[in-house]
């Protein structure tokens, strides 16, 4: 599904050029659950952002679903993202001014799906992530775990094939963190490809493969038996 060949990401200031990622190659197969680990500043979030087409690469090649998207415009990338990828962030990134329902509904609005269908799909997803009873609440009225469940709901409501999660449990206590991880594992079992950045060895155990990043390089990749939910 994803094939990164020798990609590099360089951050430049007036006097310094820093390789956030240096000639990294990575393949993610459909249905995989991949965990990316590494210290702060190692480049793992940059790698995730590039996989999610939120950031551009400076060198190398990015093949997504057999298409080289390296030179795509922002608008084209947005279209691919819209149809294929859902995002979950450490800080949830819900829009404060919108209710739970409206937050989850947003990707469907941008896909120009009819109001009636949106309503059905959003309600179904809210049930799935167990937050339907809070659908009219605003994000600031929810706990962290509840907010992240909303974020997961939003990430999958458009039936994206792939879910990218940047430390999805980073702002949650262990109980809530565990709940979110089980939700992700369940989605993976239903066929959603998941790439997740995490600091937690425990949560990395939910993945099929763990990639370790250090100073912009992938230093190891370990296949493992994924922990069941």
């Amino acid at each position, binding site marked *: 599904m994803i094939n990164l060949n020798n990609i590099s990401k360089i951050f430049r200031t007036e006097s310094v050029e820093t390789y956030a990622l240096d000639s990294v190659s990575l393949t993610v197969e459909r249905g995989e659950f991949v965990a990316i680990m590494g210290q702060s500043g190692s480049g793992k979030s940059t790698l995730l*952002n590039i996989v*999610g087409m*939120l*950031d*551009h690469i400076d060198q190398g090649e990015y093949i997504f679903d057999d298409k080289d998207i390296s030179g795509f415009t*922002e*608008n084209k990338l*947005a*279209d691919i*993202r*819209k149809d294929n990828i859902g*995002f979950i*962030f450490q*800080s949830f*990134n*819900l*829009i404060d*001014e919108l209710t739970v329902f409206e937050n989850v509904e*947003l*990707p469907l609005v*941008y*896909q120009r799906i009819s109001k009636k269908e949106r309503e059905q799909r959003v309600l179904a997803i809210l049930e799935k992530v167990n937050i339907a009873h809070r659908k009219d609440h605003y994000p600031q009225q929810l706990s962290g775990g509840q907010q992240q469940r909303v974020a997961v709901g*939003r990430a999958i409501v*458009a039936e994206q094939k792939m879910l990218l999660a940047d430390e999805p449990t980073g702002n949650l206590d262990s109980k809530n963190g565990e709940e979110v991880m089980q939700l992700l594992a369940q989605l993976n079992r239903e066929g959603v490809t998941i790439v997740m950045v995490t600091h937690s060895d425990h949560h990395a155990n939910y993945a099929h493969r763990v990639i370790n990043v250090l100073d912009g390089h992938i230093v190891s990749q370990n296949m493992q038996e994924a922990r069941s939910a």
Partner: protein
Amino acid sequence: MLSNYLTIAYRSLLKQKLYSSINILGLAIGLAICISMAIFVESELGYDTFIEDHNNIYRTSLKLTVPGSPEQNFAPGSVYNAERFSVYFDEIIEAARLREIGATLGYGTQHFSDDGILLADSNTLDFFSLELLQGDSATALSAPNSIVLTESAAQKHFSNQNAVGETLILANRISLKVTGVIKDLPKRTHLDVFALISMSTAPAFLNNPNWDQNPSFNYSTYFKLAPLTDVAALEAKIPDFLDNHIRANTSDSLHYTLIPVTDIYLKSNLYGELKNNGDINIVYSFSIIAALILLIACVNFMNLSTATATKRAKEVGVRKTLGAKKYSLIAQFMIEAIMLCYIALFIAMALVEASLPMFASFIGKTLSFNYLDSTLLLTLLLLGLVIGIISGAYPAFYLSAFKPAKVLKGEVTQGKAGALLRQGLVVFQFSVAIILIVATTVASSQLNYARNIELGYDKSNTFVIRGLYTNEASSKRDALKTQLQSHPNIINVTASSRFPTGTLTDSFGLINPITNVFQMMPVLSVDEDYFTGYNINIISGRSFSLDFPADKYQQPSDENPTPAFSVVVNQMAAKSLGFSAQEAVGKQFKVLAGRHGKESIATIVGVSTDYYFSSLKTEISPTYHLLNSDAGYSMSIKYDKNATQVRDFIEQTWATLIPEQPISLAYLEETFEQMYQQEDKEFIVFNLFSLLAIFIACLGLFGLASFTTQRRTKEIGIRKVLGASVFDIVMLINKEFSKQVLIANVIAWPIAYLIMQQWLNNFVYRVDLSIFPFVLAALLAFVIAWVTVGSLSAIAAKERPINALRYE
């Protein structure tokens, strides 16, 4: 501490070059306009205060109302008012009259036609505090044939020689002895004085020993009243005086009021003013628009400062953590605001210095900007301080209220009250912009209407000659006409007492043939070629013709006490007399020279269309035309081609026939344009200000849109991650501002309607106030908002979403 504040302010200014430039530029333009307007307004105020006792000096104004005729207003009054009013009213201490005579002055072969040659009562010099440089003020204007020159006049006629004792010739026939030289009058006066001729010269000049016995309404009459006189009470007594001491029922048609001499310049724009006066409405409207522009600039300042505030949040947090008190932060941001204001002020002063000569020349004023004057400088510095405090207050309080714990974590919250205030400011700016757009559109269509209205006469390819009333010119009128007609390119020459674009001030009384009621009606003396020359349609009957000797106007005389003659009336006159255009032909009415004057019999031989003789501000008068070429004080010459050749020919012919009088020649189209020249200039200045106001409002909107996109950076990023297109984001942000523009329209429309309805009321013939300017203003406001906000939000939306999320 202060130096630390200034350093930070300076660096922050440099760091945010775009915002600082917009902020300073907007404020500088606003201040420059405000200063220019203040200079203009100041130059329009304080007129005639050089006259000692100006607080007690008043001039009469006359309103003439006669049934069947439009109301007419005159600055001059009757010749005998000065004496008769002074005798009757104890409140009047002293009176003085001035009469503009428009005659040539010179000697030998040198004769000049200058404005400001006035007949003046003997007390004029002391009455108006005119400073005499040579001569005796008590006697200079006493004796007949005396003239007092201004320095300019003395210089013009006698160069550096001593003028006193020299002789000048008035109207090529009356010798005047120079009895004094006065200083040129100050610029700020409604008086237009080049030379003053003793009033006792009037019988000779007017060829009439009884010149002051007939009600000649040509004399500007001034009264010095006793201190503390109740002017309203005095005015209230005038009608009784007129009816009992002038003639019964005079107050039905003549209404005198008293205007303070210091108000004449700005508040009196009547027929026969000594010179073109200013207009208090212009002073008011320019002041209001200047104040609005400054206010808009201040609003911008607040908006842009708060827009950049989030970038200063961390600094506020750190300062607070290190022990800064709220008031010290307020002081810091206030100082920054004041510093920016002073930078803007200095740029504004440079802008004023550079643009004032152009502005002054355009509006035809002498304006100067002496910024080294300590009072002015102090005022400007104070202005900068006040604007700095007003503009800086909100950003200062807003910034200093940031909670350190939150801002250091990057959470800058926006209070609802602050958001409401900012939205209110945008609504205010847009309301002003919409009102200005409506105003300029309506004004533009009204002025266009005035230019393109069917006038009812043809003003093209026409020269006009004025000043055919002097003995020299009038004696050669027929010869002039005959010679001019000989030119192959001249197709018509016609003489008339006045020509279109002038004012109909001559009225004869008549007896309405149906109601038998006395009424006054404006009258115009023309010759047999008038209607053809101006292409004025005769819709029934016929025009004057020399084939009908009975057409010619005759005054009652001993030999012919009740003469008969023909008249051509316009449609309104026919209507005023109670006839349709067709019915009127052949009807007769009695004409009276005065209310108890001798009767003549007028027969209507033709009815012309109504044509716009004067400005559109004046209603078309019911008018009757007399065939009276002796009163042809002006001449119009219509040509088919070769304007330059024709002009040369007219000038040469005049110079040959009437060498002693300079020709006063103009294009009729030019005199037509001159009627609206002042309005045109005011319109252009108003348009310019409106554009600048809209421009500054756009700057403010840009600031606020920038603020909004900054505030919503995270949201924009999230929406983009979720699939929003650039268009979706632009629509999202525009929607927010569209609401404010909509509210601004709701507020602005009724205000603009009331203002423009009031303005249009100045015009008798005016465009209807349609919905179009309002819709246009609304559309423009939306377009301005969408383009300004849209471009900014498009830039934000085009950013890669990760940048937005990193911001978080």
